[in-house]
């Protein structure tokens, strides 16, 4: 990469890092007055950004398996996203300080008085929870490390057996991804309301992560499109394919969300329905309606048009919107666990995604500038 671009990347990195640090510092000051809210906002923002890191990790493996030029042009972006997983592991640590504030099952007195929580105690207890988190991160970081290392080797040597090795890792890697993300979503989010359960929950998270990742990558591509190696190879067909991929994940998200809703609504069982009752009453209900319109109907209609998909500016605008509603969706999934009374947005809920996002984007940019923006393998 030429010197000018590196300088520009460094400038961007310093800016987002500063913005993130300031936002986090303000939130940390707020934590003194309202520690409960600090951890809730932190969890919600953390889930959004780790979702993109994990989505990058999954889609790069998917691309190794199925191929296609759409993936070659975004491969460095995805690899850089996966490369931020060690940073996300560090950003998990503040969360651990607030476990009893976030999770009912981490408060011994609450568990003692609740038969169901006593039943779940062999799974939902602090040491096992920490062990599982450590295991998930070990798997993610190790796999992402090898994927990036071999990708570098492929760039240097261009030997076909490196490609075979990447494919060989990606099949089992995706299986491990599916299992770890499923249980991580149960541990971190589902167990906020420990009486409730849903077997499709892991898939809901995987699709949401994939959707956010594609949207993020499209926006990043738009920012990089005028730069030298990118401007030579990017064609409308790439945007068209990425737009279709975003459309596919959007429909998958809607399908999975609707399936879960329909099955629980029609069963109307006392152990399942409270989750939706909480999320469909008062302000939360309006938020659900807005999600239906802006997380599905509007982007769906816009993405049906070939005209919109083949123009990167329009596509990036849609993707930016999708990223925003992903944030709202996560808010709607996480926060009603704490505010069953009605919709409540704290200033930390707004600032925290900026704070963690700043640190994450800085790590992402640092990863991105280390290597050429396009893999030497070619095939774009």
């Amino acid at each position, binding site marked *: 990469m030429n010197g000018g671009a590196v300088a520009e990347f460094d400038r961007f990195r310093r800016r987002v890092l500063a913005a993130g640090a300031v936002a986090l510092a303000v939130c940390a000051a707020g934590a003194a007055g309202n520690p409960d809210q600090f951890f809730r906002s932190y969890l919600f923002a953390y889930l959004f950004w780790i979702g993109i890191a994990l989505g990058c990790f999954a889609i790069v493996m998917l691309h190794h398996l199925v191929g296609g030029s759409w993936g070659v042009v975004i491969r460095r972006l995805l690899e850089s996203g996966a490369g931020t997983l060690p940073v996300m592991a560090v950003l998990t640590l503040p969360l651990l300080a607030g476990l009893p504030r976030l999770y009912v099952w981490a408060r011994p007195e609450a568990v003692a008085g609740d038969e169901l929580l006593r039943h779940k105690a062999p799974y939902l207890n602090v040491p096992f929870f920490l062990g599982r988190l450590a295991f998930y991160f070990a798997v993610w970081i190790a796999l992402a490390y090898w994927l990036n290392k071999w990708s570098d080797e492929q760039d240097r040597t261009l030997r076909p057996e490196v490609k075979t090795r990447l494919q060989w890792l990606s099949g089992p890697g995706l299986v491990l991804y599916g299992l770890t993300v499923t249980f991580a979503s*149960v541990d971190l989010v589902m167990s906020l309301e420990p009486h409730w*359960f849903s*077997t*499709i929950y892991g898939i809901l998270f995987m699709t949401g992560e994939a959707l956010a990742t594609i949207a993020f990558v499209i926006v990043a591509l738009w920012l990089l499109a005028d730069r030298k190696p990118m401007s030579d190879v990017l064609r409308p067909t790439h945007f068209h394919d990425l737009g279709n991929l975003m459309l596919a994940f959007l429909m998958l998200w809607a399908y999975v969300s609707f399936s879960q809703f*329909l*099955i629980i609504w029609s*069963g109307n069982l006392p152990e399942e329905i409270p989750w939706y009752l909480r999320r469909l009453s008062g302000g939360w209900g309006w938020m659900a309606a807005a999600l239906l319109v802006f997380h599905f109907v509007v982007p769906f209609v816009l993405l049906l048009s070939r005209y919109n998909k083949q123009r990167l500016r329009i596509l990036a605008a849609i993707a930016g919107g999708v990223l925003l509603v992903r944030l709202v969706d996560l808010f709607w999934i996480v926060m009603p666990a704490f505010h069953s009374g009605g919709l409540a947005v704290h200033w930390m809920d707004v600032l925290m995604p900026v704070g963690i996002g700043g640190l994450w984007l800085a790590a992402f940019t640092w990863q991105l500038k280390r290597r050429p923006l396009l893999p030497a393998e070619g*095939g*774009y």
Partner: protein
Amino acid sequence: MAKEGQSGNPAVAEVEAPVIGPGHTYASVTDKISSIVLTRKTPRAWWIGFTITFLLTMLLLYSIGNLLVRGVGLWGVNVPVGWGFDIINFVWWIGIGHAGTLISAILLLLRQEWRTSINRFAEAMTLFAVANAALYPLMHMGRPWLAYWLLPYPNTMGTWPQPRSPLVWDVFAVSTYALVSFLFWFIGLIPDLATLRDRAKNRFVKIVYGILAMGWRGSAIHWQRYETAYLLLAGLATPLVVSVHTVVSFDFSIGIIPGWHATIFPPYFVAGAIYAGFAMVLTLTIPIRSYYGLEDFITMRHVDNMGKILLATGLIVAYGYMMETFMAWYSGSKYEQYMILNRMQGPYKTLYWALIVCNVVVPQLLWSQRVRRNLIALWIISLVVGVGMWLERFIIVVVSLHRDFLPSAWGMYRPTAWDWSTYIGTLGFFLALLFLFIRFLPMISIFEMRTLVPHPAGKARH
């Protein structure tokens, strides 16, 4: 594109196995495929196979006739297991059909050109499987001549189908699916029917194919309209791959029976359908490919890809079993927990563990490319998966129903000889239709295969 590929880059230059054998021309492709229908002598094995499956079709007709005369009491269904072989086989057959739609619609839209040589065959398989599937709910009604009551139409009886029931959604899902699958298959056949019309020597054969070809002349405007219609139908068929089995999964999951009421059912059923469907495609194509010498058209690359899809969908199905088991414990509900224990240790435990071996353990062999490229091994695995998916439906339907909330209402289900004769009859009917299809229609799309032949003027196809 081609230039970039040749830029001295070994990672790209790595040659993938071809989707068509070497040395073929437009004429040789047309000859090879159309000769099976037009000129080659009908092989003795075809006659033997068709006779056996025709007799089994007669067994099906006998079983149905008996059922209509004597009533549904012939079957093993009773309280508490009111759904038995009828629903098991309905779900099994309709699941098998999904591979055809996936191959023809989704792989077309994803520009996977390796699909070309297997799509026609898989679409035919879809149609015949749906025909068999649709028989079961009709028979289960007991009075199939009143089936039109399922349709919402203004009538003097003052009745209306319950729109909240997924069984009513099924009527629309399955009939739409059958109609679109038929249109897709038939429209895809038209250019080939015209080829057969032009090549046929016998006047009668010429007239029959001529009528079916609907005046196809192969003009530029015909092709242009054809391509548009085909793409539109592919777009229409794509949601059907997901919607039909999703509605089938709602038949179960909308209720509150433990073992049925699980949110994972929709994606897990769809993956299971594609799993069973690809298994059936492999079960059928591997012998036909060898028998008719179609190795140039259905290459090892096809076989390998289908093995991979089998593995991927099998893993999703295994994920479904895992989540059901974990959440049954995690839920803390004693009914959910008992449902899983009853599967593993109850009276049907042998079938449950056989299911795990067939659907989860054995397919792990497909991780190895050696196994995926070993035709005999792959064929056996495809049969094992077919059996496994049937067992899965048995476990879901029967084991969930036979012991629900009240122990005093528990009971056992045993299929009767009539259940078996109907099931074996549908297997025969399915294969008999396939034998007729192979004999009278081109089982591989001739004109689409011609597009895969390297262009005579240059090396690149684009």
